[in-house]
């Protein structure tokens, strides 16, 4: 058993202060080994983004600890170079994650200048290497982000994150703004990079299809609480929480879910869904045993 790269212990994040203080995440905890992918799954507003933003230093924990390579992570401004470079992030909105006033070359070169290890010629070579790494044409380097497609922008954002040679990559809904075809391509790229660079990942998503493709472990968050977590096979094939079951049904076979009269009625009514109404969902999950259907080709 290798030592964990990232260890989250009893993490809580709150907004507001005094009587107005409200926890958006509480009691989250898990370990992540180097080169492993942890999927963080949940609704919008469930606290899943908050969790990874706390790791990235963009949100401040109210309680608990985040250990990176055995050292407790302070707020962003107080992090050492090793910590900063070790953790990088790819954001949800490809349109907002690149400075519209910079060329792609500048976007990729800037972190290298900040790190300051390479001289001009070496930096240019490194920028081209980074483009190769994410399978982008070098001719794009002199364009502005607005000239790129969503998928290309997201690849540039990945390349920028990789320029710091991180050990942990946070992908916060990095695929959800892309269309189906690009989602598949970018998730394939992330998987390839994970293998090549032994990159650990926090992969935030509510798309069970890409979770199944990407993750080694899954952590499901609902209403600011971790409702279930474990190895991907266990969570996807033997989901325990109602939310996970419903999410799986939605991803695997919405038609079958709506064809189930009890489940359909419960869905139509909204609100919490009883275990009885969800009984049929396990059949859907079983019938579509994920591993048989769609083996990775």
């Amino acid at each position, binding site marked *: 058993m290798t030592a964990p790269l990232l260890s989250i212990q009893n993490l809580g994040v709150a907004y507001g202060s005094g009587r107005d203080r409200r926890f958006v995440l509480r009691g989250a905890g898990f370990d992540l080994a180097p080169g492993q992918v942890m999927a963080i799954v949940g609704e919008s507003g469930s606290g899943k983004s908050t969790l990874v933003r706390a790791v990235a*230093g*963009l949100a401040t924990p109210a309680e608990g600890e985040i250990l990176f390579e055995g050292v407790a992570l302070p707020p*962003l401004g107080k992090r050492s170079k090793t910590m*900063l*470079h070790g953790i990088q992030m790819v954001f949800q909105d490809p349109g907002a994650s690149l400075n519209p006033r*910079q060329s792609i070359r500048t976007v990729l070169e*800037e972190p290298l200048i900040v790190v300051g290890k390479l001289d001009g010629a070496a930096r240019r070579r490194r920028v081209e290497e980074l483009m190769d790494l994410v399978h982008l044409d070098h001719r794009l380097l002199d364009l502005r982000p607005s000239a790129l497609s969503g998928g290309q922008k997201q690849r540039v954002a990945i390349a920028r994150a990789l320029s710091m040679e991180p050990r942990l990559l946070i992908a916060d809904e990095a695929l959800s703004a892309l269309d189906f075809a690009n989602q598949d391509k970018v998730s394939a790229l992330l998987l390839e990079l994970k293998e090549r660079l032994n990159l650990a990942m926090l992969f935030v998503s509510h798309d069970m299809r890409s979770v199944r493709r990407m993750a080694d472990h899954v952590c499901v968050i609902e209403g600011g609480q971790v409702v279930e977590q474990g190895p991907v096979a266990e969570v996807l094939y033997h989901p325990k929480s109602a939310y996970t079951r419903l999410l799986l049904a939605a991803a695997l076979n919405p038609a079958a879910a709506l064809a189930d009269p009890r489940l359909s009625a419960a869905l139509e009514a909204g609100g919490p869904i009883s275990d009885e109404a969800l009984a049929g969902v396990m059949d859907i999950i079983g019938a579509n045993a994920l591993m048989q259907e769609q083996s990775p080709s």
Partner: protein
Amino acid sequence: MSRSLSPAIVGAGVVGLFCLAVMIFGDALSGHDHRAIDLSMRLAAPLAPGHLLGTDELGRDVLARLLNGMRWSVGSALCATLIAFSIGTTFGLAAAHKGAWLGGALKLLTTFTQSFPSFVMAVTVIALLGDSGFWAVTLTLGLVTWPVFSRVVYAEASSLFQREYVQAAEMTGMSVARLYAHHVLPALVPTLSVLVVFHFAEMIVAESALSFLGIGAPLGAATWGAMLSEGRAFMLQAPWLTLGPAFAMVIIIVAAHSVGQHLRNLTR
């Protein structure tokens, strides 16, 4: 294509160049000393020999006084804008960058200053100073109106710090100076340039209003506001005394607005 030059912006350019010439050459441009009294030529109508725009009740050349008024008004408005811009932008930027307490303090201060009409505030400050003169007026206008800038800069910069590309830049550990120079300030340029131009137009009006009330320029100085105020007594007899400064103000303000409008279109 919005980059083509409209007549309005060409006109504004001409007005700007004219301002510059007046700033540099002053009285030489009209050929008269704006203070020279000639009681034999009182209230001469425009186009009178040697007095293109006529004379006032003391026989002083109206054109010379208008141009001097322009030096005073435009100069004061420019300096006041610059002061408001510098203070406001500095405060706004500082507060936006994680300055939780500074942001709170700024909010309090701007709420406080904006709960009084800035003009009333300026009148009060000048009255308290007990001194009127170019710098008293200019400093007061600048110091009273900077929250306009700080508020806008604070709002825009705060939303920029929520933007993903700025957060990605922060995560590389770059210096605050670099973060501002490369990611924050360039994004603020469009808004700020428009704001500066409109603020300038407002300062022209404010300065003239103070002079009109007799608390801006010192007694006897040729400023547009003072000219309007003095010309009131001769409104029917010598309408050119009031029409001259009024038109001058309108031209400057329209020019400033068309520049602002143009900048706004360019950056959209």
